[in-house]
């Protein structure tokens, strides 16, 4: 009799769970069957009158029914939760192609970017990065670099002279002088910065541009070292194998002095309009530091020697990005600047 009631409870409740259309209906069915005053509780009340073996057998059956119903309930409840979640999520559709709000990063000037890269390279080679003022003394800019005022080499660099008798540095070389005097030998240093020449501005000439001066002073520094160093440096800057050549060039602060050419990166040396069909592009001046320059800055040229070079940062940036008008670099036009 009780067996039948339990079986009937199982059948009816499972059917009720199955047909429940909402969480509320499901709960109702569950309370009816398994609640404190539910059918199962009532059936179990009658167990007291049964003989012990029968009670044990029916007890097992009751537990099995209860277990089945609870499992079925949990199962159905999970399905409701799942359905509800799915419904909610379906409503949460967004158009992922809508633009995101908020500010976008700006950009750094192309010369800054190139300068950072080259500074890192030199730092990795143990070079100090030095700074100097843009308003310089005649002594630092010329005299200490073996260019006395009567020297015709002064004409090689058109100088901006200032009301207080100083000048705007025409090259970053005066930082060499400051470096030698501050740090002494041995010395490995670079000095990037802004320099000035009194020149009319056009697409390829500027009165304001950027250089990076480099210097290495040690006991034995040779032309062979300079060539090796320049080849390594330029290959790294251009991110490819670069062939360099030195030819005589005159700069009063070096002896011997060189113009360094690189094999044209556009045509590979065959000849093209960029290299004016020569296969070579003039890139930078360099040389072994003139003994007078060492001596003026308190370094004994009989013990120490070195090389120095001047890299045109502005020129390199123009080469790297194909900039054909130098004026854009200082034109302050966001249409240009925001590209970098």
């Amino acid at each position, binding site marked *: 009799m009780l067996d039948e009631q339990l079986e009937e409870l199982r059948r009816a409740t499972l059917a009720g769970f199955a047909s429940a259309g909402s969480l509320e209906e499901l709960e109702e069915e569950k309370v009816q069957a398994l609640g404190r005053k539910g059918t199962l509780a009532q059936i179990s009340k009658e167990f007291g009158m049964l003989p012990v073996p029968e009670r044990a057998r029916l007890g097992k059956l009751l537990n099995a029914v209860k277990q089945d119903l609870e499992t079925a309930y949990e199962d159905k409840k999970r399905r409701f939760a799942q359905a509800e979640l799915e419904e909610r999520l379906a409503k949460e559709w967004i158009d992922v192609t809508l633009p995101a709000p908020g500010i976008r990063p700006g950009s*750094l000037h192309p010369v800054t970017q190139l300068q950072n890269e080259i500074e890192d390279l030199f730092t990795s080679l143990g070079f*100090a990065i030095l*700074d100097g003022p843009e308003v310089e003394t005649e002594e630092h800019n010329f005299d200490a670099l073996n260019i006395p005022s009567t020297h015709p080499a002064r004409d090689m660099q058109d100088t*901006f002279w200032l009301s207080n008798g100083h000048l705007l540095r025409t090259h970053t070389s005066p930082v060499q002088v400051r470096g030698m005097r501050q740090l002494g030998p041995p010395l490995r240093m670079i000095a990037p910065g802004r320099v000035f020449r009194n020149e009319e501005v056009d697409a390829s000439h500027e009165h304001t541009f950027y250089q990076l001066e480099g210097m290495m002073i040690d006991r034995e520094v040779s032309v062979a070292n300079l060539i090796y*160093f320049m080849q390594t440096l330029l290959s790294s800057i251009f991110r490819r194998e670069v062939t360099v050549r030195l030819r*005589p060039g005159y700069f009063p602060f070096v002896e011997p002095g060189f113009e360094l050419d690189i094999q044209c990166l556009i045509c590979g040396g065959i000849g093209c309009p960029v290299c004016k069909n020569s296969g070579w592009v003039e890139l930078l001046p360099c040389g072994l530091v003139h*003994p007078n320059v060492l001596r003026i800055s308190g370094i004994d040229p009989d013990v120490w020697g070195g090389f120095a070079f001047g890299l045109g940062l502005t020129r390199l940036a123009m080469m790297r990005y194909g900039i054909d008008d130098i004026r854009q670099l200082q034109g302050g036009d966001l249409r240009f600047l925001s590209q970098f």
Partner: protein
Amino acid sequence: MKFSYNWLADSVPGLSTSASELQRLITMKTAECEAVDPVGAHFKAVVAARVLALEPMTKGKNQRVTIDAGTGQEITVVCGAPNVHPDMIAAWVPPGVALHGKTIGKAIIEGIESDGMLASPAELGISRDHSGLLELESAQPGMPIPGLAADWVIEIDNKSLTHRPDLWGHLGMAREVAAITGGTLADPVKLDALPSDEPAIKIEVANPALCPRYSALVLENVKVGPSPLWLQARLESVGLNPINNIVDVTNYILAELPQPMHAFDGDELVGGTILVRTALPGERLAALNGESYDLDPADLVIADAAGPIALAGVIGGSASAISEETTRIVLESANFLAASIRLTSARHKLRTDASMRFEKSLDPENTVRGLARALELLKEACPGIRVVGGVADAATPRIVPAPIPLPVSVVVKKLGAPVSADRVRRILSDLGFAVQVTAPDLFSVTVPSWRATKDISLPDDLVEEVGRMVGYGEIAPAPPLVAATVPPANPMRLYLRQVRAQMASQGFTETYNYSFVNQTDLLRFDFDPALCLTVRNPVASEWTHIRPSLLPGLFNNIVSNVRNYAEFRLFEIGHEVRLDRASGEVSERTHSAATIYSAQGDERDFFELKRVVECLFTGARLCSAEAKLYEHPMRAAEIEWRGSTIGRLFEIHPKLLEQEGLGGRAVLFDVDLDVAQSLAASRVFRYTPPRRYPTSGFDLSVISELRLPVSRIQDELAALAGSDLASLDFVRQYAGPPLPEGSKSVSYHLEIGALDRTMTADELTAIRNRIIQGMRGAGYELRV
């Protein structure tokens, strides 16, 4: 500087290297060649022709000319030259020949077919004379014009010759060419051609320091006229204008030895003495170029008894110039102190072919050599000319520099390449150095006079001579061997990088502005132009001052970008240069300036830029400040960080934008990064352990006068809360009903707690009451 290939070949007999190969070799071993251009290629085709008959044409000055050009038949050309006449020998340019890049064809002129043309000296490229046809004295029709040959002109970059006085003449370059190609140098100067008689003129040098040597020679029976064609063509090819036989010969030697020379009309000189002295106060010189110069007492002049006749080494005077009537000349061949010539030339803004050479320190040995060479050339260019007396030569004995000791090991060490002692010796000898072997591996090198004036005095200079002749391409690259040391740090550089990276990530684009500004820029930003550094020689009228601030440049960037963008963010990092009024000292400081511009802007832009400042300088505070003239009077603040004022944040005064025809708002900051960097570096950071005991929070609303800075309320709350304050956060502020007009309510959330225990409710209440009482005591009304 232009070099004629044929001229070089005169001094390197047997030269077989082509002009283009020479260009490459000179570039690699001596100096930079900029171009090689053919000149006078047409001289292979142009022939002499006899004019047979003339026939006037209908109109104009053109005539129909029949000529015999040795072709076996008469040729008809149309010619408008005034000097064409029967029987003259002229130069005929056959059709198909190119002159100055233009091919001469068979042209129909006024109905007559001209078969080629008869040419003027200018058309032929011999001189600049285009007044009429070139008239030859004698030549066989059909034969080439005597003395004219096709040539190449090699152009060398002047800058690469700055240190080489000898290379300002063909002989010096020929010496290089001989050394490079293995040829032999033939010196065109024959000193024994000069007579050794008593000089016919006296020379007095008052300033031997400024004029180490002055040599002169008197010549008579002079007949001034055109130079031989070959001489004219050569001068023309290297860019020197042929004038007459006397001047051309002096110019030829200027371009050959190089020795600038000057010819005075001997009959125009007053007194028998040439004086070399500095100018006297008030003296003037009417010069050959038609200008008149007020002389400076530092200028060296050549004078006769009546006054200056030339500005030494720069230009001659017009009074004693060679004219068609000249029959007697005094040839000057002198050596002047380079620095003095340079200063005089700069003082009078007058650069001449002579001054350009003298300022390089010319070889004093060339003065007498120049006279010898001139005599030889004048005998050809001015037939019948006679020397009067011998050479006058006022010379300070040349200080012959001691030989340079050169260990071969130094050459090897500096070049980093194995060069044999024999090769070093051979290279130096080829270049004219006298090399003596004083010990094995040690040379004693005597520098020739033409390299000794300025160019070469050190072993390093000789290393260059050897290196360039060996060829730098022969030196195998080798890594430098140096100690592995850590370089000194540059904290400012690192700091600038951080600032730049942060600015970019906050949406700012970096701009670079010029270091120059103008008066308008300065006045707009309230700078006294008198207190700014000015440029003595500005490149343009708008760049007269050195910027004392980055603001003017940034403002100009705003103005120029508004036409393309409704809103944008820009920043710059650069130096501002200021002059201290009292000391006259220049200070150069690194600043960063930034702007947010918005066409539809409101005060939120101000707080956005404030947010950026707080990101850059953690813990920075703004203090309201009296606005400067260019700042919005109600929106200007100083930026305080770690106890120092590091800059300002402000909205630009709307009238500045209006003056540029712009609307919108621009907020800017300007920060001294030198100060900021030292503050950033001075911070000693110590870790604080997280609180182990809970805190309790409550809100307070303080009613205050509307324009009272909330920072004050915040400071007072913090002070009252004391050491148990864990955090104090602004919640909101409100003004409006039901609050009375002119007041506002500012709400804060406070968290209170002790570090070593959990506070009891009583303790918390006591603290809260203390704050409330304190605020009320300070005159605030509180909503609690």
